[in-house]
């Protein structure tokens, strides 16, 4: 696998949000990762939903800041992207299991192809968007034990 993976940071993005997910995006303005937490079951969920997926109740949801540290559950290397990503291939997208027990899918930066492996430690890389929000990418967490 002698391909070098690229990053996709300079792809133009216009991301539409749902109102019930806005706390996530607002927190990214200060490079904070917040995840929905169900008070009734004491479990986290991602992506954001209008209700707790554990109880079905809206009132059980609150948002909690988390470290963003996690390990790679799986990843794929796109050799053919959607039109906005043409010319950036190959690039990697990883599903990372956060230490609070949810998977979060994001692009990968600052990582050599040969280093990208299931089980490797990752931490957030915050990429600024034009509207002041940041888009989370994954980068290797070299300080992790």
């Amino acid at each position, binding site marked *: *696998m002698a391909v070098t993976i690229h990053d*996709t940071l300079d*792809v133009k*993005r216009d*991301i*539409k*949000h*749902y109102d019930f*997910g806005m706390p996530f995006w607002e927190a990214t303005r200060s490079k904070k990762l917040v995840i929905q937490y169900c008070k009734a079951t004491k*479990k*986290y*969920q*991602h*992506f954001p939903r209008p209700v707790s*997926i*554990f109880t079905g109740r809206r009132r059980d949801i609150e948002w909690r800041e988390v470290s963003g540290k996690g390990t790679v*559950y*799986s*990843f*794929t*290397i*796109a*050799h*053919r*992207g*959607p039109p*906005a*990503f043409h010319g*950036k291939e*190959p*690039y990697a*997208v990883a*599903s990372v*299991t956060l230490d609070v*027990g*949810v*998977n979060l*899918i*994001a*692009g990968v930066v600052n990582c050599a192809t040969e280093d990208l492996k*299931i089980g490797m430690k990752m931490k957030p890389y915050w990429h600024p968007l034009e509207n002041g929000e940041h*888009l989370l*990418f994954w980068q290797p967490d070299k300080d992790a034990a």
Partner: protein
Amino acid sequence: MSLRDNAIVAYAETKVMKKSDRDVWVLAGEILESLLDKTGFDKAEIDGLVMSGLTGTGGASMFWAQSTCDMLGLEVGFCEQVHTGGCSAVGAVARAAAAIDAGMCEVALCLYADTHVREHNGRNDRNYRRDWTDPYGLLGPPGAFGLLQRAYDAKYGVDLQALGKLAVTQRNHAIMNENACEELRVPITIEDYINSRMIADPIRLLDCVMLADGAAGLIVTSRKRAKQKGLKKQIIPIGYAERTNFLGGDNLVDVTRSGHEIAGTRALNTAGLDIKDVRSFHPYDDFLIALVIQFEAFGFCKPGQGMAFVRDTDMSYKGTLPMNTGGGQISAGQAACSSHNLIEAVRQLMGEAGERQVKDTTNALVTGIGWINYGRNWGSSAAMALVPGE
């Protein structure tokens, strides 16, 4: 269970085309005409229409099934569109049978017409995608199955020779199927599979379905009405189950597991069949790894043993477990609202499969897979057991 008081009494399909040379309504009309000719039903006797919601052409219309009635001149007491993605083909048969049981109609047309290559109007981003995966360029189903297959590989190991064997087996079937997409009716080898270019590593080109255009349809009616009509060939849905959003109330889900664990068990239990009794298998194939996961989820083998099961089993039309004898979608083309494998099972049980006819037509098991959810495997899983009746 009462679905089995009903039967599929006729099937029809167009040839799968890389891109249709005619409108989707023309294809729908050809299917209707063929089914009327085959059954002897008058158009006025068709009082139910069940369509698949898995349609690129119809995907922008809020009134697709109704406007289809209008286009085809059908007046019905039951008008339905099924929204379980690639499970909608078998789902339509189940809903037609349930509606007949409930007295809402007596003769239902299950119609699967789509020209998503010629005219794609559908959208699939009013969900998690626009916030959570599209910004990263994760390419729809191949991207999701890339994540899935690598996770499977880490847990159990992927054998490319086994996946290649599946590709070759299905391709050989497509070559024998004159209705398969002509561009796909060329022989391939296991090496061709392994050397095909990466799309979403580890997903290769020959792991994937190719979108294509075409139409198919079935007539479902009560066995009583079929008998009155003198229709001798009856294919009976003796067991059906579906599962949408499997483990949807969990936050971390092992992607090597699917709702087929539940749908498969329930469908087989209702049918009174053990998995070892299944005589031909027609699993939904959008990616080859989905076949392996289904062998495991249905209990043909234990979890993690799917690759070995493929290596050890002859799945050709003359083998011990004939599988996707029309070529599957991967080698026939993903057309006609993904109804291809269902239509093939019906054709086999009616004994009309020509040179690829399976010997044992005691029963067949057809499955569905529908939609891709976030970081899981797939959104809907379905299974339908069919047996020939009189």
